């Protein structure tokens, strides 16, 4: 039996396996050649099996995180097909290994963050807020640090958002609200179908997170 070619773990052998390998080589060649439709074919063919396989091997992981990691690996492979070496493994195996590594890194990062938060007493947290944000500052640290930021800097951060956006930022990073419905109410999009509502909330949060990250260097350099 040969290692599976598709991400889902379906095992093929003999002629079928060779056909799969050939299809995989063709798709990889199209990606390398810059065929504009190849990334779409890659996602359509490999994303769903990869999510299933990754979820199966990480049963306790947050399904949303699993899907995000799998999606990012597929998108990154579409953008950088040269990173995949066909002579070393099947494409499905490569995607799974890459996603597994990224998922592991996400777990490590989350546990480091949790440990850091646990180890800080309130006095240390106040010290962190003293315009000494780290290079990898999370947007949460930026706004949560507002209590002791210089008023001028706080005003600059605040000025980058309108009133509604600022409320969303505070819900996101100060109150750590996860419930999509809370954001939907605030944004006035409760009437949308659930999937669309969820997408819209995510889009707004991603946009605000990006803007917070762009502000981070200014806060640090002004500190």
């Amino acid at each position, binding site marked *: 039996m040969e290692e599976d070619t598709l991400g889902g773990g379906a095992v093929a052998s003999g002629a079928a396996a060779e056909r799969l390998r050939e299809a995989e080589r063709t798709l990889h060649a199209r990606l390398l050649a810059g065929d*504009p*439709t190849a990334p*779409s074919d890659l996602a359509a063919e490999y994303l*769903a099996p990869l999510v299933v396989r990754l979820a199966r091997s990480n049963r306790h992981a947050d399904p949303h995180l699993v*899907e995000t990691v799998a*999606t990012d690996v597929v*998108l990154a492979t579409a953008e950088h097909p040269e990173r995949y070496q066909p002579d070393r493994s099947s494409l499905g195996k490569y995607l799974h290994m890459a996603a597994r590594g990224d998922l592991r890194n996400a777990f490590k990062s989350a546990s480091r963050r949790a440990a850091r938060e646990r180890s800080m007493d309130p006095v240390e947290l106040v010290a962190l807020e003293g315009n000494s944000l780290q290079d990898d500052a999370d947007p949460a640290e930026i706004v949560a640090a507002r209590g002791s930021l210089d008023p001028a800097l706080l005003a600059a951060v605040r000025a980058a958002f309108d009133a509604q956006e600022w409320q969303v930022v505070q819900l996101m990073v100060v109150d750590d609200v996860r419930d999509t419905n809370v954001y939907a109410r605030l944004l006035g999009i409760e009437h949308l179908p659930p*999937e669309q509502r969820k997408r819209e909330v995510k889009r707004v949060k991603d946009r605000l997170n990006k803007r917070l990250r762009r502000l981070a260097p200014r806060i640090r350099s*002004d500190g």
Partner: protein
Amino acid sequence: MADDLLRRAAERAAERPFFLAATLLPYARAEGLDDAALAARLGCAPEALSRLLLCRQPRPEPGAFRDDVERIAAAFGLAAPHLANVLRQARALATIAEAEESAWLAAARDREPPVSDE
């Protein structure tokens, strides 16, 4: 379910300029189009929209742009000139939006009170 997964992937791809989603989804929002309306605007079947969004952006050079648009159009059964027009409109809107955001941030910076040298 696979369709939903690809639609969410397209949403994520919109954060990467490499993908068509990065041009077409902001365009749809700016124009107030939901998925069905965007698909109609592009002339594609609604169920094909996610896959279309996951295509690579056509390269910007004139000859390459036409070739890429024709390949995408052929794969999805679209009219290439119409797709090219929508993409040009979307790119123009994106350029305007970027310019507006830069101007807005510059204005916000100008409003900052001067910091004393103490």
